[in-house]
């Protein structure tokens, strides 16, 4: 495959027109998945501070408990929730369950994700 072919394939993903619901689910799944991979690597780096003992670790807690980081946590947990619920949908479809209702399932996943994310946001920001 030529480099131009790879580039065309990558940009073809980003065309939001002429799509079926499954495509939006697929792209959201990819997008949240890549975000979670980036967070995972950052999380590993941050956890290295545990080797510095209580001084090294406890100093970080004020920063990570600050408002901007908590808002980031809400976005992160929302990504986790969507990726997980959509993953269940993908598994069902892979096993041949509900293939005629995949769009409806995507709607259910979106609504359930929004509800759970709102609950998590309340817990993180206000509880």
């Amino acid at each position, binding site marked *: 495959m030529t480099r131009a072919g790879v580039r065309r394939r990558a940009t073809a993903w980003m065309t939001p027109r002429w799509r079926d619901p499954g495509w939006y689910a697929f792209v959201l799944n990819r997008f949240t998945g890549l975000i979670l991979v980036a967070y995972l690597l950052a999380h590993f780096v941050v956890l290295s501070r545990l080797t510095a003992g209580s001084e090294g670790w406890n100093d970080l*807690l004020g920063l990570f*408990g600050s408002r901007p980081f908590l808002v980031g946590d809400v976005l992160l947990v929302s990504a986790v929730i969507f990726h997980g619920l959509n993953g269940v949908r993908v598994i069902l479809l892979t096993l041949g369950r509900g293939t005629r209702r995949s769009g409806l399932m995507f709607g259910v996943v979106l609504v359930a994700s929004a509800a759970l994310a709102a609950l998590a946001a309340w817990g993180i920001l206000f509880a």
Partner: protein
Amino acid sequence: MSGPSLRPRRFAGRPPGALPGYVPGADIPTDDQRASSRAGSMWLVKAATGVLLVVFLGTHLVAQHFLVEGGLRDYDAVVAYLRHPVALVAELGLLVTVIVHAALGVRAVLVDLLPGERALRRATWIIGMVAMVSLVYGIGLTLVVLGG
């Protein structure tokens, strides 16, 4: 029924004559044989680790953050948590499953871009190395924290 429409639709529906399931970019030539032989080979592992992640990551988030006053454990609380055998198994299980799942996911993104055989092999090797280093690092960090 089909034919040139008087007012062409923009940004909605599908191109004239396209069937449901039409995908922009699907006209780009693909290597179907290779795609089919590789893309699905790890789906079961991804599904299995995905289900395990619901359990392990759910436990992790609830125990490490949602049940903790202020949402973050201080150092002593982290050590105390890891000293619990069930927590230790859950955290190490999370470590393994999340690394496997993430590595397969990143590779799947690359496979869909259909790079050349050699580029894909190299990417797979790099992903595998990052996964192995992460795994060793995670286990080592856990042991250091437990010992310290």
